[in-house]
């Protein structure tokens, strides 16, 4: 049987199409497991995992924790707000202290791009990147592709538009890498100020008009406006943003086809997506959340299988 080509999941950029296929095949099995009356398997009973979140998270943290518990791993979690990081401890020291308590794997979210990569080179544990600044969020991209594959049969050949704040989004970058690796075509759509200048060098074209972008695509992935990262005004007002880049039911109904609407959460209802769209049949937002657990179980299981006794 195949195994992953990597010992850490730092970013989609570091893995191969074969790795993605293997993760999806394994996630199919785990999706069946989490729909059983007893949703748990004992595979990782001798593995301990630390979830270290230096940045806020609800969905990702819960999803990782649940995935780990469904695999019977022992889990410790902490948030930086309650930790000695505030007292001046370095990242490597913090993690090495945790590892000396016999931890095998670290899932980390950090506000600095490259933090997960840095850690993988400096500590002896398997590292899973749960988001590093505006760099990558690989498990989110994997669960997005997994959901597209489930909904449309295949990712290859599909047209996907990512709408919103591309500049500050790690979800966008990981998605672009993952989708292109699987043979999908990607466009981005958003205010010019929130589109990175180099984006076309990634083979991604820019469509400034939302209606045209939606008419072109099979799937629209709506990103949240990350107010916490907007240090200056990138657009005049939220109201103006919504008028130009918010998806509404009227807009979707006026298209000549039915497209799939995705959102990595948390959603700002009435900003990038209206409530009736978020709750509609076309939206797969809650499927994404369910698939997130299965995909994360697959990633953790496959990485753990490479940790030798």
């Amino acid at each position, binding site marked *: *049987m*195949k*195994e992953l080509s990597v010992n850490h999941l730092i970013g989609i950029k570091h893995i191969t199409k074969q790795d993605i296929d293997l993760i999806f095949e*394994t996630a*199919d*099995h785990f999706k*069946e*497991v989490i729909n*059983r*009356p*007893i*949703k*748990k*398997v*004992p*595979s*990782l009973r*001798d593995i301990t995992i630390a979830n270290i979140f230096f940045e806020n998270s609800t969905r990702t943290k819960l999803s990782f924790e649940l995935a780990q518990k469904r*695999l019977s791993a022992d889990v410790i979690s902490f948030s930086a707000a309650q930790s000695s990081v505030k007292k001046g401890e370095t990242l490597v020291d913090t993690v090495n202290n945790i590892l000396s308590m016999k931890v095998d794997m670290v899932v980390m979210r950090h506000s600095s791009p490259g933090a997960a990569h840095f850690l993988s080179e400096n500590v002896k544990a398997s590292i899973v990147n749960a988001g590093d600044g505006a760099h990558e969020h690989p498990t989110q991209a994997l669960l997005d592709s997994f959901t597209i594959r489930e909904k449309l049969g295949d990712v290859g050949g599909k047209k996907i538009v990512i709408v919103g704040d591309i500049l500050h989004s790690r979800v966008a970058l990981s998605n672009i890498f993952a989708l292109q690796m699987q043979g999908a075509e990607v466009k981005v759509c958003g205010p010019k100020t929130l589109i990175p200048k180099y984006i076309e060098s990634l083979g991604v074209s820019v469509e400034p008009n939302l209606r045209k972008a939606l008419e072109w695509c099979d799937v629209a992935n709506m990103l949240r406006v990350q107010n916490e990262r907007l240090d200056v005004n990138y657009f005049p007002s939220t109201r103006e943003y919504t008028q130009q880049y918010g998806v509404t039911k009227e807009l979707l109904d006026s298209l000549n086809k039915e497209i799939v609407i995705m959102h990595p959460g948390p959603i700002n209802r009435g900003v990038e997506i209206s409530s009736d769209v978020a709750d509609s049949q076309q939206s797969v937002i809650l499927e994404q959340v369910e698939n997130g657990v299965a995909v994360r179980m697959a990633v953790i*299981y496959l990485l*753990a*299988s490479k*940790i*030798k*006794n």
Partner: protein
Amino acid sequence: MSQKLLLNAKEINIILHRLACQLVEKHLDFSNTVLVGMQPRGKYLADRIKKILEEEYQIQNLALGFLDITFFRDDFRRGEKPLEASETQIDFLVEDKKVVFIDDVLYTGRSINAALTAIQSFGRPSEVELLTLIDRRFSRHLPIQPDYRGRQVDAINNEKVLVKWQDNDGEDAVYLVTK
């Protein structure tokens, strides 16, 4: 590597009919019994037993599922090769049901041990039995014995019992392979 034929198609056919007959004797109309084939290789045997029960004993509404035990195995991260999972298809609950596990070869008993844990994810069975085509005696690591056995085989550790099925391998045969 050499191989010796242990059972040919005709012998397998006779054994399958005997096993089906023994099942009917114990479970009658199968109203409270479910069959569970062990993935990946017990699936073919389970399919064949089901076919005989339906066609020759007119058993109706026979519940058959397939259980994959990969995530319940006790050798995760211990072997050289990574484990490969197969699909689990069990669309019924086993709560208070009589469950019959079906596998082609019983060797160390570790797979069945894992299956006993795995099946609990689908409820608490009232009892569990084991049917195997080949019972490799003297090689058990655990106190597990079949309730219905096709043929007992004495094989030493560098020998492998290979079961082939018409549906998958193009012939019904059992070989003893020496590495």
